[in-house]
């Protein structure tokens, strides 16, 4: 066991959540009741399901396949944004293009993105690693990510905190963050939105108002500033005051594992099938 993992277990009061679970729970806590969230498959959807059941029952979840107000069933979270499991029980089904036009119109409070690479200005790469004309790794590409980061009112980036992901400059700007910082996003014609938070297994980060450089705001429990610095491939803004996020709680962890289908029926009261 490394020193960091020992500190983590102590800080989470013996619960021992996995790093991805810590991250998903932190992301879910950012979601406010009554807002509209454009979610992707995986952690964003789990974060949304968790938030809806704990503190944000009126969170409306959008999927790029054309689904508005989706219904999330424990253990049956969809594998794709374009499949029956994602659509059954939705409040509305429209076209995929219409979903993104609603994003452009400004209806969506949050977008949630995962990344292959993110840089100090919140630019996101999910397209390729290496030389763009002859990449060493061809990745799946933007899907909805370019439009989400260009058009949602704010975008939360959720990713493991590793030097290979947190790079000085992304190999390819699939989805525009604050570009080269300062006013460059606005000068490129993007008048709205942008990355607001970066949630990782080590920390919660945001972007400084003037330079638009990534800034450490709070540490995950048990994590120290030097852990974050070591896992970041560029110079972060580190303010004098850095907060510490609340530890994961037992009810959060139990519910999340249930939603993920990892546990059968751990909920002590109420009808947990119905949302």
């Amino acid at each position, binding site marked *: 066991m490394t020193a960091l993992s020992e500190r983590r277990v102590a800080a989470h009061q013996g619960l021992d959540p996995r790093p991805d679970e810590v991250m998903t729970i932190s992301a879910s806590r950012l979601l406010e009741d009554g807002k509209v969230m454009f979610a992707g498959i995986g952690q964003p959807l789990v974060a949304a399901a968790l938030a809806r059941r704990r503190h944000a029952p009126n969170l409306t979840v959008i999927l790029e396949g054309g689904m508005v107000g989706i219904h999330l069933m424990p253990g049956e979270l969809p*594998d794709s944004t*374009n499949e029956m499991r994602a659509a059954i029980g939705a409040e509305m089904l429209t*076209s*995929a*293009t219409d979903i993104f036009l609603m994003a452009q119109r400004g209806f969506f409070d949050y977008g949630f993105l995962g990344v292959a690479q993110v840089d100090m200005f919140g630019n996101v790469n999910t397209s390729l690693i290496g030389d763009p004309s*002859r*990449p060493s790794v*061809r990745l799946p590409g933007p899907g909805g990510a370019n439009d989400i980061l260009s058009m949602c009112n704010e975008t939360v980036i959720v990713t493991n905190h590793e030097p290979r992901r947190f790079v000085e400059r992304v190999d390819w*700007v699939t989805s525009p963050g604050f570009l080269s910082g300062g006013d460059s996003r606005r000068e490129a014609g993007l008048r*709205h939105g942008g990355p607001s938070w970066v949630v990782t297994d080590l920390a919660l980060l945001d972007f400084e108002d003037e330079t638009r450089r990534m800034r450490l705001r709070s540490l995950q429990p048990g994590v120290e500033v030097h852990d974050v610095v070591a896992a970041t491939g560029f110079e972060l803004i580190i303010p004098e005051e850095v907060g510490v996020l609340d530890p994961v709680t037992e009810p959060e962890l139990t519910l999340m594992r249930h939603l993920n289908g990892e546990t059968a029926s751990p909920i002590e009261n109420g009808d947990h099938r119905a949302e």
Partner: protein
Amino acid sequence: MTALAFPGADTVAAREELERERRPRLDKTMSAAEAIRRFVCDADVIAVGGTNHARTPMALLAEVLRQGRSELSLARPLTCFEAELFIATGMAAKVVTSWVGIGHGWGLARVLREYVESGRIDYEEWSHLGLGLRYKAGAMGVPFLPSYTMMGSDLGRRLELAGVVCPYTGQTLYAVPSLNPDVALIHVQRADIYGNAQIDGYELMDADVARAARRLVISTEEIVDTDSLRLDPSRTTIPGFAVDAVVLQPLGAYPHECYGHYLADEEAFSSYMDAVRAGGSKGAREYVKALVAYPDHDSFLASVSQARIQKLTEDAKGMMPR
């Protein structure tokens, strides 16, 4: 590069062709073999309906593979392994998409990676809305639509997208060029013999794709009387006058899913991916060789466990809201 440098971006030519070649209200039912023979040509830009593993026109695509075509461009917003069958066999010269993956936990698209990373396929990457607006502009009969999509990103820079200045506000947006694909292949839940077609669940981009396409082949789970469409006309998303051919093909999206009819067959994904894991693109070619050895989709379906198909069908029907 101008917008016309993008294949399929000539909306004026698409309109002129439509004025010359109407699609009168006739019985358009025919076999997949006839539809593909008549309407899919070498070097076509093919718009593949559905997205990822939803309502993929698998029977029609398999018929294209069976007959063989060359220099194809495949356009689809979210692309699954169907594109790899065309890449591995050398029939596709170009992929136009916003995303390629296999899904169901199978991760990256290995054949696509092999070809892109060795520079053997032309890969054109758009945003999801970018491709959606290309179809929408094509469907509207205009050469471009203004949008914020891809601004500031390397997608727009690489595509050399041009800006357009709003004459009222002075604001600059990207001019997203239209796409009127040479042919579109779309699978639907039901249609009449004239091609009036209903899509259940998510239409994805298919209403626009159908209007934009210069030729349109639909496959359908069932053929119904026109009178039964009148019971729920708001669900009719494709008008018959946009359609060239209607192919009756139950399970026409198998092994992908069709909303309300059957779920995707994850075992079939596994058999494809096992072939690719073992032999890369050679494995994909062997998969295609076995697929096209069946004379048609029905005989391919007869080779699949009927109990499995029944379960996928029952599970899909059991999920429907009631």
